[in-house]
């Protein structure tokens, strides 16, 4: 199933043109949620690019994930303004809470944490989002209730 979809992505790009690598990877991740070994092998054949080069490129950027099962994204702002409002404590707490929820398995995670440079809400920091829910002026204490609420709402 996945294989076919990846083929359909590849078809959009010319054979052997490695300059499209990043865009192919982005589409693959959009489609299957992460960068799988199988997809990298396919891309490798299609672009005549060794898998290690693809892996090297993919790991260079923040966007790409290699764990198989990430359902929801938690984003937290690490901008300077948020940092002044103690976002680092918030990030610590989110990391801790997520690790409790996700468990120890690296490959399978319910939430993944994305630390973003700025969310354009410098006066309301620190800010974090769970999918499309925004939390402003967030203190570490509200992380757990927020996650609990989200989990309950989505029946995880």
């Amino acid at each position, binding site marked *: 199933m996945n294989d076919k979809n990846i083929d359909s992505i590849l078809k959009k790009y010319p054979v052997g043109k490695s300059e499209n690598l990043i865009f192919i990877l982005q589409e693959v991740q959009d489609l299957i949620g992460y960068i799988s070994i199988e997809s*990298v092998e396919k891309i490798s054949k299609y672009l005549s690019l*060794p*898998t*290690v*080069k*693809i892996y090297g490129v993919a*790991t*260079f950027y923040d966007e790409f994930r*290699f764990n198989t099962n990430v359902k929801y994204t938690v984003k937290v702002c690490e901008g300077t303004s948020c940092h002044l409002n103690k976002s680092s404590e918030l990030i610590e707490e989110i990391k801790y809470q997520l690790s409790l929820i996700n468990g120890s398995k690296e490959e399978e995670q319910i939430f993944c944490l994305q630390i973003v440079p700025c969310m354009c809400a410098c006066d309301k920091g620190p800010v974090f989002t769970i999918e499309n829910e925004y939390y402003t002026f967030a203190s570490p204490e509200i992380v757990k209730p927020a996650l609990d609420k989200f989990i309950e709402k989505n029946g995880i």
Partner: protein
Amino acid sequence: MIYDIEVNNRKIKAYRGETILSALQRNGIIVPTLCFMKDLSPTGACRMCVVEVEGEKNLVTACSHTVEEWMKIYTHSLKVINTRKLIIEMLLASHPDECLYCIRNTNCELQKYTAELNVSERRFNNFSERKKNDVSGAGISYEPSKCILCGRCVRVCDEIQGVNTIDFIKRGISTIINPSFSKSISNSNCIYCGQCVRVCPTAALTGKNHIPYVLKNVHKQNTKLVAQCSPAVAISIAEEFGVKAGKDFSGQMVTALKKCGFDAVFDTSVSIDLHIYETAKIIAEKIKNNDKTTLFSSSCPAWVKYAEQSDFDLSRLSIIKSPQQIMATLIKTLYAQNVNIKPENIFSVSISPCLAKKYEAQREEHSQNIYNEVDAVLSVRELARLIKLSGIDFLKCEPAPFDEPFNIRSSASNLYAVSGGEAESILRTVIFMLTGKETKDNTYTKLRGFKDIKEISVKAGIYDINFAVVNGIKNIHKLLDEIKTCKRHYDFVEIMSCSGGCINGGGQPLKTSVEDLKLRTKIIYENDKKDVINKAHKSPFVNDFYNDTLNRLQLVTSFDELFKTSYKYKKVLN
């Protein structure tokens, strides 16, 4: 165009368009470099080669800037020296302080620059967590905590070998050099050619150490410690003892090995003669039958692994075992028979210029039979270490001959050490097999030299013989494409993974210049010219073997056990 530039207040000559570094080097001004590799484009990553150019705000890297006529350069001003020193100290900050226990102690580039730049104390603490070692590889060990990320291994693997096993992974302080999906080396597409080990400035990449295995079996009761030496070892081992390249030290090597505790020392060249003979038989048969398939050589284990993990049609790979494995089988059968001991009581060591041979020795085809064919493989560097360890003054060793029964060889066998040599020596025997006549001139210059792909067409009576040689694994695709498009037909293709052949193998001395390679090649061809027995089929051993020895030999299974092997597809991430 040549012009004068001013360096350290003196005028030196520089060519238009060359880099500052090349001008400095030619004029005897030494500037330290870590990431720089001759003949490859500069990356400017290490910043060690910075120099001060008058009028430039910042220091410039000598490796990447071209000289300009107006330039006034200071290569060793206080500012430059302090900068270089600090760069080295930055590297040392995350580098383990264990030089004394390191395999590259005294020949490490980082250590050398640390000393040269007078770094005398650790100014920056090491807060980094130690990265995990990877000792899974059969031929190569990897210690990432010692890696300084100069990228030389990555570039060799990509630009010179074209194998692409490793690359930079992640970024910033987390950057690490790893195989695809950070798999271990044993699960990667590494072919163990060992070129990365040769260029590594530190001990991050090293050949797998087999010395302890050997030491365990020195003077062990009921165990015969036996060595076989590849022809590419004798011509380079002396370099590890300070002798200029281009001299054959096989005699001294035999004595030294005996002094180290080996009970018998054999010449792998003897089995090369058998290898030539067996391969030539197949080719001659093929030509006679007008069979237009191509036989690909299989004596380079790195190439064999490369073929097995690609979509290459493995049925085209020669099923004849490599000389190392033929000799090992002979040792554990014929020799065991002669001295009347069980094969498991022989500890068979192969001394080879190659790290992939370590891998070959533990392939299941060669280790999971009744006995291990080869028990340990020592590289040239390891041999030198063993000799030093045993307190032997190598250069004062009296030359001695190899031990019977594996001591008589043709000079053709020694050609296996250089690229094109296998093809040339097989060609000599094939011509004989097809025509039944001996040729007078046995030099085939078209197969010699350092070209990427060499080819030759020879008429032998009514037959046409077409051979090709691939010098360096990167060039294999060029040739395969030509064969695929039916542009050319070859009866036999020799492939050596390392450019230049085994004389440039991953187990050879670390610092091997192009000049050294030329000298090593020269001595091999000179020896061949002098020798009377210069064809495998003329070797007394070979004649004896087929007429007599083979009948006496009690093989466990069959004749195939001695000469034949098999291959299978290996799934790796390419």
